[in-house]
């Protein structure tokens, strides 16, 4: 604990006993890659929700009026950018497996802004930013569902400034791809099915013009043994997760011990939405 507290890179986190990964994006993309959709034989088979994704960038948050904003203690942050079309999304993913079903903790410092293409506050242009895990138990576990906890901060929808945390428990029906019955797809980030987290309203620091940003702390706790969320904190607010549940679907035959982490952005207007991530610390008790 004393070493953590004295380490300027880790002191801002509250990790569980083992750090699985600590990404500050001054050492590259740290394994955060593009979420590509499934396909077989032909890329045209990829669902449109995935086909729109592009690779995340390393950004200094350069702005036309004020130059590079930079990260918390390096020049760089991970940038996940949507296309300029209302409802467009983009997702970055980090893929691991786990060695023990126990508590894990996901901590990030993030911020979001729309592309600064208008001299206006633009506070309702970003629809949401969020994250999800994609999990499945071990091949000898009896209870192995594929479990996908999803959380998003719904900033705005159809121009209404809503500012609340939401979760979802449904994905779209599975669709077989190709002819070999080996590859399937579903669109878990479809716009339908989001539910409000009880008392999940939160006004974040957006700042006063589209090129000023402030970093926000987020922490999500999940127990791989019970496959239940155990905590959510965003800055000074701690949320009751007793009503939270995940998307749960039958286990898939190639995903044992999967431990995937995704972060995503959605735009509410025909303007690019940017999710910036200064740093991520993923830890566990194992």
């Amino acid at each position: 604990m004393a070493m953590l507290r004295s380490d300027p890179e880790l002191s801002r986190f509250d990790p569980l006993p083992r750090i699985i990964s600590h990404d500050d994006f001054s050492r590259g993309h740290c394994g955060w890659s593009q979420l590509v959709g499934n396909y077989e034989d032909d890329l045209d088979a990829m669902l449109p929700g995935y086909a729109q994704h592009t690779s995340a960038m390393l950004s200094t948050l350069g702005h036309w009026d004020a130059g590079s904003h930079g990260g918390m203690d390096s020049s760089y942050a991970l940038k996940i950018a949507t296309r300029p079309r209302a409802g467009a999304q983009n997702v970055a993913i980090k893929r691991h497996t786990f060695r023990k079903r126990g508590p894990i903790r996901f901590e990030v410092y993030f911020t979001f802004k729309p592309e600064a293409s208008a001299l206006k506050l633009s506070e309702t242009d970003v629809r949401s930013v969020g994250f999800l895990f994609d999990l499945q138990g071990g091949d000898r576990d009896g209870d192995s569902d594929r479990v996908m906890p999803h959380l998003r901060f719904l900033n705005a929808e159809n121009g209404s400034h809503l500012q609340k945390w939401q979760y979802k428990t449904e994905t779209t029906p599975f669709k077989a791809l190709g002819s070999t019955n080996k590859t399937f797809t579903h669109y878990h980030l479809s716009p339908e099915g989001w539910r409000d987290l009880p008392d999940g309203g939160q006004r974040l620091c957006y700042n006063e013009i589209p090129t000023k940003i402030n970093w926000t702390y987020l922490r999500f706790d999940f127990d791989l043994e019970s496959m239940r969320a155990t905590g959510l904190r965003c800055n000074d607010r701690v949320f009751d997760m007793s009503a939270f549940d995940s998307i749960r679907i039958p286990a898939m035959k190639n995903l044992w011990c999967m431990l995937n982490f995704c972060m995503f952005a959605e735009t509410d207007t025909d303007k690019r939405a940017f999710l910036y991530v200064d740093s991520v610390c993923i830890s566990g008790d194992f």
Partner: protein
Amino acid sequence: MLPENITAIVARNELWSGSAASEPYEAGWAREAVIFVRALKDPKGAQPACRVEISPDGMRWVPEGTSAPMPAARDAVAALRVKHFGNWLRVAADFEVGAESTVLMTIHLKA
């Protein structure tokens, strides 16, 4: 420490026609970029040149000077090499009416 490098997929199975351009890509950390444009399907109509564009802000674009003919056949690849580009990169091409190409565009960056 080994120098950073990354392969970014900026357009995958995207139909380019009219005035087409890839999404902006930030790469200020990189000293050099090689960009490949592959035709995933048989291109239709006259294929224009594709050009590298740079930008002060990711919103306003100017030609960098590097260009290459769009790939003339399915699975053909155009290559563009750039060394001085500031922070922002994209590739643009102007197609005649009726002309198009379905592309895979990848940026390969090296610190």
